[in-house]
């Protein structure tokens, strides 16, 4: 009883290269690895704030203008947009909305959410910078 797991884990043991078996698995793994860029960008931003808090504002701004950080951030932006697109598509696949006799398709959720992303982005810029 003591050695028993607290709840059953029904996870299949996979080989490290299972995701190379087909394109769908490979794209899934690419999507999962985009999270590394999301996390690293967040950590770089916190590091920038630490430079400012312990030094000067110029150090924070210099970090943002550093070519390596700019290059990394542009790659991170591409991966973040990929994350956003796949996330929106998944939302449509997981929770389709029934309207009358038809049900919404994942690509409709993708387009709707991309439009929403543009609106939210503009609102964010307006609220935190332009206002």
């Amino acid at each position: 009883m003591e050695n028993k797991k607290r709840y059953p884990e029904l996870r299949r043991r996979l080989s490290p290269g299972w995701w190379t078996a087909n394109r769908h698995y490979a794209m899934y793994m690419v999507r999962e690895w985009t999270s590394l860029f999301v996390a690293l960008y967040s950590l770089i931003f916190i590091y920038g704030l630490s430079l400012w808090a312990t030094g000067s504002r110029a150090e924070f701004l210099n970090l943002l203008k550093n070519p390596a950080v700019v290059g990394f951030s542009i790659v991170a932006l591409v991966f973040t947009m990929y994350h956003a697109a796949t996330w929106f598509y998944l939302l449509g696949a997981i929770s389709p909305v029934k309207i009358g006799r038809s049900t919404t398709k994942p690509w409709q959720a993708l387009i709707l959410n991309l439009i929403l992303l543009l609106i939210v982005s503009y609102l964010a810029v307006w609220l935190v910078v332009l206002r």
Partner: protein
Amino acid sequence: MKMETHKVARLHAILWGIFSLGGMIAAFLLPVLIYMTAIAYPFGLWPFGSPSGCLSCPTRDPSFLVIGHLLGALFVFVTIAGSLYHGIFRFQSALTEVGLLRLKRGLEAVGYSIIFAGIILLAYYLLVLNPSLPAL
């Protein structure tokens, strides 16, 4: 025993719930933050570049996000904290799928430590830097 199973299952549900919330934040708010800090500011583009011929227009930089007003600091906190949680949680989960399943507990410990330390430091720096937030 049954009670403990419920507690673990509930904790899992909460952690995955926060992960989903972080995914929404990373999808909706992170792109615009990266655009502002990594493209607009270094290359002098909208909203940080002043329009041509407008000498009296205020020129702002990304530090305005932190110290401009309370909403900016809140935006930075929600976006960075949510994205950090989502990114680390997902990456640690992805590592277990590429042959590191036996290190799951260790990866979780490292992952949650980074998330916890990152969010605490982020909140601390924002409190120190933003004058409209309560002083420490």
